[in-house]
C-alpha cells in the first residue's frame, strides 16, 4: 500500500492543535490565557523533541543529517586548523604513496594485453630441467614447434615468434641496431590484432625468397619515418638486404616487456628442423584455444605431446617439460615484476595503516576533549547512533580531504617514478599514469581510511555515559578501562607494524646492497664496451670474422688513452649462455644430468682487458689458432664443481656445441671466478674458448682506458667505422653503465623501500608521542592524586616510562614474531639474493624502535612530572 509521508508542517499543526485544545480546557477550569497556554506546553513536554523525533522517522532525515554532519565536521576542522592539517597531511602522504605504487600495479598487472580475447590465447614454453631463474618460461625449439603444432587438437591456430632478435636497420644511410622479432605469418591473426596501416604477412611469406617483407612498430614509424603513411611499399635495408615495408602496427600494440621495432617473417628451413636444432630453443608458441576448450585441457594435451617427444628424442629432450599459460599470465610472469610490486604494495599498505592509526589516535584524543560536548548533545536528545555517525563523518571528511590531497601528490609521484624508471626500456615502454584504476583505488582506500580513523572515537562515544561526563569529568580518577585498552592496542599495533617494515626493508636493502657492492671478479671501472653482430652477408666464415676482429682491435688500441682491447661473446657478469660438457676419463652421464658451464669465446687479451686474474697455467696466445690443438681456460668454480678439485691443467674436456660433440680441448689455465650476473651473488663454472680457434659472429668489444671511458666513445665509433662504416653498433657504454642497466630497478627499489620504512618509523614515533601525551593529559587528575598521596614527580615519570616500555616491548615482540619468516621468504622470492646475518637486523631495528618509543614517551611524561597536585585536583 502506498502511504504518503506526512510533512513536517502537518505535524507542527497537529501539535499546535493539541496545545490549543489543552489550553482551552484549562481556561475552562479558570486559568488565565497565558497560564493555560504555559501549562499546556508544560504538559506537552519538549515540543522540539517531539517534532525532532517525528522528523527523524522521515525519509529525508538521512541525507539531511549527513549534510548537517558534513557542515559540522568542516566547521570543527576549520576551528582546529593545526589538527586538521596534521591529520589530512598524514593521510594524504599515506594515500599518495599507495596510489603511486598502485599506478604500477595498474599498468603492469591489470592492463589487458592487446588483441581479441587475450585470455583465450595461451603461450607454450618449455621447462628447463637445470634449476635457474624462471626455467619454466624457456622458449621452444623449431622442431618441437612444428611437431607440437601438428599434434595439438585444442587450438584454432598456433603460431610462433622469436622476440629476442636484433637487426641492423639502415634508413637514409644511417645504420641502427633495433630490436626485432621473427614471427610466423599468422602471428597477428592468432593474437587478434590488425595493422594500423598496410597489411600483415601473407601465408607464403615465410618461404625463403619471399621473406623480405617487414612490419614496423608505431614508434619506429614515428621516429624514423615521420609517420609518413606512404612508407608502406617502400624499401628499407635490414641486415644489408632490401625489405619491403608492408604495414605499421598500431600504437597500443606492444606486449608487456616487449619493445619490438621491426617484425620480419620467421623462416624455418631444413637446417632448423635437424636434430641439432633441437637444442636451439628460441621460439615462443602462441595458440588460440578452440571455443569450450579450457587452459587445463590444453595443458594436459601439451604434456602428453611433450612426453612423446621426449621419448622419441632422449638425447636432447630428456627431462625437459612443457608449460602452458594464458597470454596475460605469461607476460606478467615473464616480466617478473609481481614479487617486487607485491612487496612494495605491502609496505605502502602498512605505512597507510600506521598513518590511519595516528589519525585515529588524534581523533580519539580530540573526542576525549569533546566528551562533555557529546554528553550534552546526547542529553539534549541526540541519539547515540547520531553521535557515532557524526564522528564517522568527521573521519570521512578528513579521509576525503586526505585522499584529494593524496591524489595530487600521487600525480607528482607518478611523474617522478616515470622519470626514475626510464633507464629500462621495457619498463618505460609501459605507460603508467593516473588512470581510472588508480582513481578508484584511491577512493577505495580513502573510504577504508575513513572507517579505520573514525571507528575508534565513534566506538568510544557510543559508550559515553552522560552522567559521569556531565559531572566534572576530572572526578573520574582515570580513563575507562576500555579506552586504555584501545590505546594500548593501537600503540602496540603501530610498533609491531613499524618493526615488521623496518626489518623487512633492512633485510632487503642489505641483500641488494651486498649484491651492489660485491666483487664481481673483474675490474668494471675504466672499461668501455660496445656490441655488434657480424652479419653473414659480409662476414661469412671464420677467416673473415677473425680478420675483422684483428683489424678493429688494432685500430682501437691506437686511440689515445686506450690501453687494451679485446672481444668476447658475452660481457662478464651479464649472464652468458651455458654449454653442456664432458670430461675425458669421467663416466658419461645421461643427457639431462650432464654438467653445464657458462661459455665465453674471448680474444687473446681478454683477461688483461677485463682485469680477471690468472691463477694457474697460461692465457691464450696468438699461436692458439685453428691449426693448433684446441685449448680452453676455466675458472675456480669449474675446478671445484666439475673436476672435484682435481688437478685441472692438462685435463681434456669436450664442449657439446649445437648438439654434436666437438673435439677434446685441453685446459691450459685457471682464472678467478666472475659472477654470473652482476645482480646476483652466485658463481657458476665458466669455460673460456679462444676466439682464434672458434670465432663467433655476435660479440662485444671492450676497451680498458687510462681515463674516463666515456671520453673514448666517439673515437671508438670512428675506429670501428674505419673497418666497416655500415656496421650497426649497439650498447656503446661503459661497463659500469651496463651493470647499472642490468640491475634494473634495484637501487631505485632500495631507495623507495628505504624511504617508506623511515616514513613508517617517523609516523609510528609521532603516533606513540600523540597517544602517550593524550593519555598523560587524561590522567592529570590521577597523577595529582598520586602526588598528593606522596608519590614524587620521578615516581610518576617512572610509571609512565614503564608503561611505555611495556607497550613497546609487546609491540616489538609481536613484530619480531611476524618478521621471523622474512629472511626465508625473501631468499625464495628473489633469485640470486641471499640475506646474511638476518638476526643483526632484528636487534638493530628493535633497539631503534625502543629508542624512538622512549623519546616519544619521555617528552610527554616529563609534563606529567611537573604537575602541581593542588591545581590538578582543584580544576579539571
Amino acid at each position, binding site marked *: 500500500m502506498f502511504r504518503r509521508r506526512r510533512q513536517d508542517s502537518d505535524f507542527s499543526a497537529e501539535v499546535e492543535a493539541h496545545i490549543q*485544545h*489543552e489550553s*482551552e*480546557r484549562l481556561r475552562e477550569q479558570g486559568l488565565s490565557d497565558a497560564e493555560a497556554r504555559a501549562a499546556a506546553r508544560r504538559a506537552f513536554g519538549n515540543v522540539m523533541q517531539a517534532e525532532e523525533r517525528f522528523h527523524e*522517522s522521515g525519509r529525508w532525515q538521512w541525507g539531511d543529517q549527513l549534510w548537517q554532519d558534513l557542515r559540522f565536521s568542516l566547521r570543527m576542522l576549520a576551528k582546529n586548523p593545526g589538527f586538521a592539517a596534521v591529520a589530512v597531511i598524514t593521510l594524504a602522504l599515506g594515500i599518495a604513496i599507495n596510489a603511486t605504487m598502485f599506478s604500477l600495479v595498474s599498468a603492469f598487472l591489470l592492463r589487458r594485453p592487446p588483441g581479441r580475447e587475450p585470455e583465450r590465447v595461451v603461450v607454450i614454453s618449455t621447462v628447463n630441467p637445470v634449476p635457474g631463474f624462471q626455467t619454466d618460461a624457456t622458449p621452444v625449439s623449431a622442431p618441437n614447434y612444428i611437431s607440437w603444432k601438428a599434434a595439438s587438437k585444442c587450438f584454432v591456430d598456433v603460431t610462433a615468434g622469436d622476440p629476442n632478435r636484433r637487426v641492423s636497420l639502415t634508413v637514409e644511410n644511417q645504420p641502427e641496431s633495433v630490436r626485432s622479432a621473427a614471427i610466423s605469418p599468422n602471428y597477428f591473426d592468432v593474437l587478434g590484432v590488425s595493422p594500423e596501416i598496410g597489411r600483415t604477412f601473407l601465408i607464403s611469406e615465410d618461404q625463403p625468397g619471399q621473406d623480405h617483407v617487414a612490419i614496423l612498430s608505431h614508434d619506429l614509424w614515428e621516429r624514423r619515418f615521420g609517420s609518413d603513411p606512404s612508407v608502406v611499399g617502400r624499401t628499407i635495408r635490414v641486415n644489408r638486404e632490401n625489405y619491403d615495408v608492408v604495414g605499421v602496427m598500431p600504437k597500443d600494440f606492444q606486449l608487456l616487456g616487449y619493445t619490438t621495432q621491426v617484425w620480419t617473417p620467421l623462416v624455418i628451413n631444413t637446417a632448423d628442423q635437424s636434430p641439432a636444432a633441437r637444442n636451439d630453443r628460441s621460439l615462443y608458441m602462441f595458440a588460440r584455444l578452440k571455443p569450450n576448450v579450457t587452459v587445463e585441457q590444453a595443458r594436459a594435451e601439451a604434456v602428453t605431446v611433450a612426453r612423446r617427444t621426449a621419448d622419441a628424442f632422449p638425447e636432447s629432450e630428456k627431462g625437459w617439460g612443457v608449460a602452458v599459460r594464458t597470454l596475460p599470465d605469461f607476460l606478467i610472469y615473464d616480466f617478473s615484476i609481481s614479487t617486487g610490486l607485491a612487496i612494495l604494495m605491502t609496505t605502502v599498505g602498512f605505512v597507510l595503516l600506521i598513518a590511519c592509526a595516528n589519525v585515529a589516535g588524534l581523533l580519539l584524543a580530540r573526542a576525549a576533549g569533546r566528551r562533555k560536548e557529546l554528553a550534552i548533545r546526547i542529553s539534549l536528545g541526540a541519539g547515540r547512533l547520531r553521535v557515532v555517525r557524526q564522528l564517522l563523518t568527521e573521519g570521512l571528511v578528513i579521509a576525503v580531504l586526505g585522499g584529494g590531497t593524496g591524489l595530487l601528490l600521487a600525480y607528482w609521484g607518478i611523474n617522478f617514478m616515470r622519470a626514475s624508471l626510464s633507464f629500462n626500456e621495457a619498463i618505460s615502454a609501459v605507460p603508467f599514469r593516473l588512470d581510472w584504476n588508480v582513481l578508484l583505488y584511491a577512493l577505495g582506500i580513502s573510504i577504508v581510511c575513513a572507517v579505520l580513523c573514525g571507528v575508534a572515537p565513534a566506538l568510544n562515544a557510543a559508550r559515553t555515559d552522560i552522567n559521569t561526563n556531565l559531572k566534572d569529568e576530572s572526578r573520574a580518577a582515570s580513563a575507562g578501562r576500555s579506552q586504555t585498552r584501545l590505546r594500548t592496542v593501537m600503540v602496540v599495533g603501530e610498533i609491531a607494524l613499524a618493526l615488521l617494515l623496518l626489518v623487512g626493508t633492512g633485510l632487503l636493502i642489505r641483500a641488494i646492497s651486498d649484491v651492489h657492492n660485491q666483487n664481481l671478479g673483474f675490474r668494471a671501472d675504466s672499461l668501455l664496451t660496445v656490441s655488434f653482430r657480424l652479419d653473414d652477408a659480409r662476414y661469412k666464415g671464420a677467416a673473415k670474422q677473425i680478420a675483422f676482429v684483428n683489424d678493429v682491435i688494432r685500430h682501437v688500441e691506437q686511440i689515445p688513452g686506450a690501453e687494451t682491447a679485446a672481444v668476447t661473446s658475452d660481457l662478464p657478469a651479464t649472464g652468458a649462455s651455458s654449454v653442456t660438457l664432458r670430461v675425458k676419463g669421467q663416466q658419461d652421464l645421461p643427457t639431462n644430468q650432464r654438467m653445464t658451464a657458462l661459455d665465453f669465446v674471448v680474444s687473446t687479451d681478454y683477461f688483461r682487458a677485463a682485469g680477471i686474474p690468472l691463477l694457474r697455467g697460461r692465457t691464450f696466445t696468438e699461436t692458439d689458432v685453428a691449426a693448433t690443438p684446441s685449448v680452453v681456460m676455466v675458472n675456480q668454480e669449474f675446478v671445484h664443481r666439475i673436476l672435484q678439485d682435481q688437478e685441472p691443467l692438462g685435463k681434456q674436456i669436450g664442449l657439446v656445441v649445437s648438439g654434436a660433440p666437438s673435439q677434446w680441448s685441453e685446459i691450459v689455465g685457471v682464472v678467478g671466478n666472475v659472477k654470473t650476473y652482476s645482480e646476483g651473488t652466485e658463481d657458476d663454472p665458466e669455460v673460456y674458448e679462444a676466439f682464434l680457434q672458434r670465432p663467433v659472429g655476435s660479440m662485444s668489444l671492450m676497451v680498458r682506458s687510462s681515463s674516463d671511458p666515456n671520453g673514448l666513445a666517439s673515437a671508438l665509433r670512428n675506429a670501428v667505422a674505419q673497418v666497416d662504416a655500415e656496421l650497426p653498433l649497439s650498447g656503446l657504454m661503459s661497463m659500469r653503465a651496463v651493470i647499472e642497466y642490468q640491475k634494473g630497478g634495484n637501487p631505485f627499489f632500495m631507495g623507495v623501500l628505504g624511504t617508506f620504512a623511515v616514513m613508517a618509523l617517523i609516523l609510528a614515533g609521532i603516533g606513540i608521542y600523540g597517544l602517550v601525551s593524550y593519555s598523560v593529559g587524561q590522567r592529570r587528575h590521577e597523577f595529582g592524586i598520586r602526588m598528593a598521596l606522596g608519590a614524587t614527580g620521578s615516581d610518576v615519570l617512572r610509571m609512565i616510562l614503564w608503561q611505555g616500555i611495556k607497550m613497546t616491548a609487546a609491540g616489538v615482540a609481536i613484530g619480531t614474531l611476524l618478521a621471523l619468516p622474512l629472511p626465508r621468504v625473501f631468499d625464495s622470492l628473489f633469485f640470486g639474493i641471499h640475506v646474511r646475518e638476518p638476526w643483526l637486523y632484528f636487534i638493530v631495528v628493535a633497539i631503534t624502535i625502543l629508542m624512538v618509543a622512549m623519546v616519544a614517551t619521555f617528552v610527554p611524561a616529563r609534563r606529567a612530572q611537573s604537575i602541581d597536585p593542588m591545581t590538578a585536583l582543584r580544576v579539571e
Partner: protein
Amino acid sequence: MSTQENKKPLSLLQGTLDLLILRILAAGSQHGQGIARAIQQSSEEDLLVEHGALYPALQRLEVRGWISAKWGTSSNNRTARFYSLTAVGRKQLLKETAKWKRQAAAIGRILSLAEEG
C-alpha cells in the same frame, strides 16, 4: 511517608502507552489531546502521560497500520487530527489486552503471596 506522595501520578510502564491508545480509540475516533485526557481521566488521574510522548507513539501505530488518521473538526469547532482504530488495530488490541491481563494477574499473584507470607 505522607499520603501526598502516594497520590502522585504514576509514570507509564514501558510499552503500555500503545495499548492504552488502542483501548481509548476502540471507543471511537479521537484526536491527540483527547486521547491524553481520556487516559488521565479513565485512570482517575493516576496515570501521567507526557503529552509530547503521545505523538511519536501515534506516529508509530499509524506506520504499523493499527490506526488511521485524518483531519477533522472537533466539538469546539477547532481543526484536529482524528485517529481511529483499523481492523488490524482492533485485533492487535484484543491480543495485547489478553497478554497484559495474564501478565498483571501473574504479577499480582506473586505480590499477594509475598504480602501473605
